[in-house]
């Protein structure tokens, strides 16, 4: 799989651009892949793991070809499963026979934005040039959802292409964007975690920089990811939550109540509405008295390192203008 990028002595294309498709399972990623590559695909495995590696070729009108890599479906990059690990490794350029992609196409299920944008923002934070393929617009519409792609584009800072991949709608536009050689990188992380967390992020990021193993634009995202993994045990340490009684030794933790949003986005607009039923309070909004997150003991991670602090993709964070109407199935 390597011969195409390296070597290729004097001939026409020195190296083909590599475009990775990333997305949740069932987001239509494979449909997009097929629509882009037709039957020109080859399937193999990543070295040493039983994770399927699907590569295809997209031929542009001018005859140049671009390689398309269909990453395994993933809900997050936290990398607990081999598939997620591979997705993350590819995006960081750490897979031996797979160069770091030049571009990521994020296939997002437009009828299920809240869940899909979690992975999307994680990937955007990795700093590769990206395009959002807002798929399943017909399903969204069928559910009575109106998705404002232009607003989403402004919010995320990368091009957003509405698609109905199963019918080929929007594919040409997507190809056009992929064909552009110069696509902007996503904006730098726009959200801030609590100050202690930011400090931790910078500390870890510095350490990562010294290793020189992580591309600079992905350093913070990788630091956040590592803290998210490493910080999880602190969930056990504290906070019973309502009715929880004394803290239990292990296996007990609160479901997160806060997903910090970029400050400028906090508390505006809504995807899912009904803030009353979504008591989410950021660190700063918590009442100081009886704070259930106050750290207990020492040695543990401060509670502010809890990974749920990084969960920021939720309805309350969507800016005004990103309309996702009521779900007809949703009662009450």
């Amino acid at each position, binding site marked *: 799989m390597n011969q195409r990028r390296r070597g290729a002595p004097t001939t026409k294309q020195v190296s083909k651009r590599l475009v990775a498709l990333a997305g949740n399972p069932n987001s239509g990623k494979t449909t997009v892949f097929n629509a882009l590559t037709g039957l020109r695909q080859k399937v193999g495995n990543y070295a040493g793991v039983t994770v399927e590696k699907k590569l295809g070729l997209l031929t542009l009108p001018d005859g140049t070809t671009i390689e398309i890599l269909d990453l395994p479906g993933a809900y997050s990059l936290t990398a607990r499963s081999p598939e997620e690990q591979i997705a993350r490794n590819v995006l960081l350029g750490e897979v031996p026979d797979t160069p770091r992609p030049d571009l990521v196409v994020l296939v997002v299920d437009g009828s299920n934005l809240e*869940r899909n944008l979690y992975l999307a923002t994680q990937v955007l934070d990795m700093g590769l040039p990206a395009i959002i393929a807002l798929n399943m617009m017909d399903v969204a519409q069928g559910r009575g959802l109106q998705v404002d792609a232009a607003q989403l584009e402004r919010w995320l800072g990368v091009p957003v292409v509405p698609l109905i991949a199963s019918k080929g709608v929007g594919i040409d536009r997507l190809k056009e964007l992929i064909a552009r050689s110069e696509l902007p990188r996503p904006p730098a992380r726009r959200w801030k975690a609590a100050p202690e967390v930011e400090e931790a992020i910078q500390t870890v990021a510095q350490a990562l920089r010294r290793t020189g193993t992580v591309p600079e634009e992905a350093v913070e995202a990788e630091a956040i990811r590592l803290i998210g993994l490493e910080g999880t045990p602190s969930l056990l340490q504290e906070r019973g939550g309502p009715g929880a009684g004394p803290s239990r030794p292990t296996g007990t933790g609160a*479901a997160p109540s806060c997903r910090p949003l970029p400050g400028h986005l906090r508390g505006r607009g809504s995807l*899912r509405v009904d803030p009353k039923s979504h008591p989410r309070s950021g660190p700063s909004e918590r009442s100081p008295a009886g704070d259930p997150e106050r750290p207990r003991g020492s040695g543990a991670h401060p509670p502010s390192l809890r990974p749920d602090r990084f969960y920021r993709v939720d309805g309350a964070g969507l800016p005004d203008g990103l309309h996702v109407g009521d779900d007809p199935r949703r009662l009450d």
Partner: protein
Amino acid sequence: MMVRLSELRPGQVGIVQRIEADDALRLRLMEMGLLRGERVRVLKYAPLGDPIELEVGLYHLSLRRREAETILVEMEP
């Protein structure tokens, strides 16, 4: 009233309060959208009571009974 998600009957709704799972499972459940304050509706149980199909936000989620047992919810009347 706080109950385990696995105790809800089909059609009943609970608000997620806590997850008493190990780190890996909790993180995964959180990533799947089971966050505190989230409304979860039990849709149905498979014939032997396992797995359980849930509605979370705009999507459906199937959990093993063992996983659903780790989730404490406040029952909606």
